[in-house]
């Protein structure tokens, strides 16, 4: 199978994630969409690694996973603390500051 198809899939997943961040309202779902974007990046990296025949892309994918894990730790801590305060994870409710 032509590896370029994986690139189309990666672009599609990235777009789904980006649109999800823009239209969804629940902070947890937003966060999952960001994770989807990061995984789309991983797929693209591994595919390019195959195309170029060097291992850089696969190694970067490992780094991305570690970064994504660290981001989960920090992100869930913040989202959970807000949820416990407001009993809501909707980003529309966090609107004390306006222009």
């Amino acid at each position, binding site marked *: 199978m032509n590896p370029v198809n994986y*690139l189309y899939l*990666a672009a599609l997943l*990235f777009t789904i*994630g*980006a649109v999800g*961040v823009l239209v969804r309202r629940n*902070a947890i779902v*937003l*966060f999952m969409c*960001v994770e989807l*974007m*990061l995984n*789309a*990046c991983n797929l*693209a*990296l591994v*595919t*390019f690694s195959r*195309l*170029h*025949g*060097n291992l*850089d*892309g696969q*190694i*970067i994918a490992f*780094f*991305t996973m570690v*970064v994504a894990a*660290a*981001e989960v730790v*920090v*992100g869930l*801590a*913040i*989202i959970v*603390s*807000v949820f*416990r*305060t*407001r009993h809501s994870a909707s*980003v529309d409710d*966090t*609107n*004390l*500051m306006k*222009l």
Partner: protein
Amino acid sequence: MTGMTLAAAIPPIPAPHIEYLQLSPMLAVFGAALVGILAEAFVPRRHRYATQVGIALAGLAASFGLILYLAQAGYATTKADLAAMGAVAVDGPSLFLQGVITLVAVVAVLQFAERRLEPRSGAGAAVDAFAPEAAAVPGSDAERRAATSGHATTEIYPLTMFAVGGMLLFPAASDLLTMFVALEVFSLPLYLMCALARRRRLLSQEAAVKYFLLGAFSSAFFLFGLALVYGYAGSVQFGQIARVVEGTATVTPALANTTGNDALLLIGLAMLGVGLLFKVGAVPFHMWTPDVYQGAPTPVTGFMAAATKVAAFGAMLRLLYVAFPGLAWDWRPVLWGVAILTMVAGAVIAVTQTDVKRLLAYSSVAHAGFILTGVIALNQHGIGAVLFYLAAYSFVTLGAFAVVTLVRDADGEATHLSRWAGLGRRSPLLAAVFALFLLAFAGIPLTSGFTGKFAVFQAAASGGAMPLVIVGVLSSAVAAFFYIRVIVLMFFSDPRADGPTVAVPSALTGTAIALGAVVTVVLGVAPEYFLHLANQASLLVR
């Protein structure tokens, strides 16, 4: 037998050669962060504050000393080179910006350590500006218990050290992967630090959520840009990317295939740009700036506003000047547009603000635009001018936010502008210092702001961006209007009877403000030495 043949077929992985001396400024700061975490676990609660402040300041001092040593030993000029297998560039701009970041961090740690502004806890312990127990729900019994017993979030110091370590690495990163990791290493602690305010905790948590979600979104863009550029060039090292873009690299069949597709390169660079422009707070990626600056604890805001900008502009310079000079005809027009939008929008929206912290946030947006004009210059003067501007701007910002922490009423800081009316009559010294910072923001001669603006505009003009300079000067004039309006409000209106009080700080915040004022005046009156230094440090190694 098959195991044997497999083992013979795989070439041994060479152990990487690490130049520990060149990397030592970063290692010192990361070391201090790790020691800080251990101290958090093992030192008794009543000794933690002194221990953590000591560790943080020692780490920063060691780092600054090592930077000075490296600069003295010629690593900024003749011995500038790539370290750690080409991942980190140790050269003039790196060392200059690392020096600025460590100094900024020292001043920020002094402000974090300030414990005289908040009223003492029930148990009589002095407390700082951070939540007594970040995990406790605001308004709950657990929070009240923690507050009365005088607990403190001393984790702020190791978090700061991690953020500083990432910031030191960010402008020095010489491949895209290192740059991405550095971006995350300094962003993640900052998200947490935003959520730690002692007062107005809902605002603080809201700021953290917004900063985190938007920050994670933008770094996902950066990562996809990284993937596309890697796909185009087959490498993430800046030097190799530049060679592939210019067509001087040895062409493999795979490279011949991917370099035929310019979309990979252009979309990739655009997405990398989104990630970096978000971090510097340029329009149209500035939406987080006012909310996060307002909600975060004010000492953290000052640190974030100053140090993040320094690190992110350093990284932007390296990315555009080292990896993508061959694409200048493509990225310069886009950055022209972004710079004009940023300068104009920042200055115009700031006019309508009524909160001091939001006002300073929009002013920082406008300043991002001014610094971008220096980046667009695309010549060596541009690099020197940007370095000087960053150094000047960061100390003014730190000082201005330190002043904001001192003007207080019963609810904490009185940040609404109407409360600042007549401050000059009540506390002439503080108002005069704040006026000095505002004049520096506005770019009035004899302050560091004027020298910085003059340097970047001169570089932009010599780089052929004259229209940009005209827009810059005009939006400076608009910006001067609202800075001067605040000065008029402080000095020429009557103080209100129920107005805020000006807290008397300890030597810690006092030092921070005094340093900011001294740097502002010195860089304004006698800038030659520092301009020379910045120009000398303006050679990027490839």
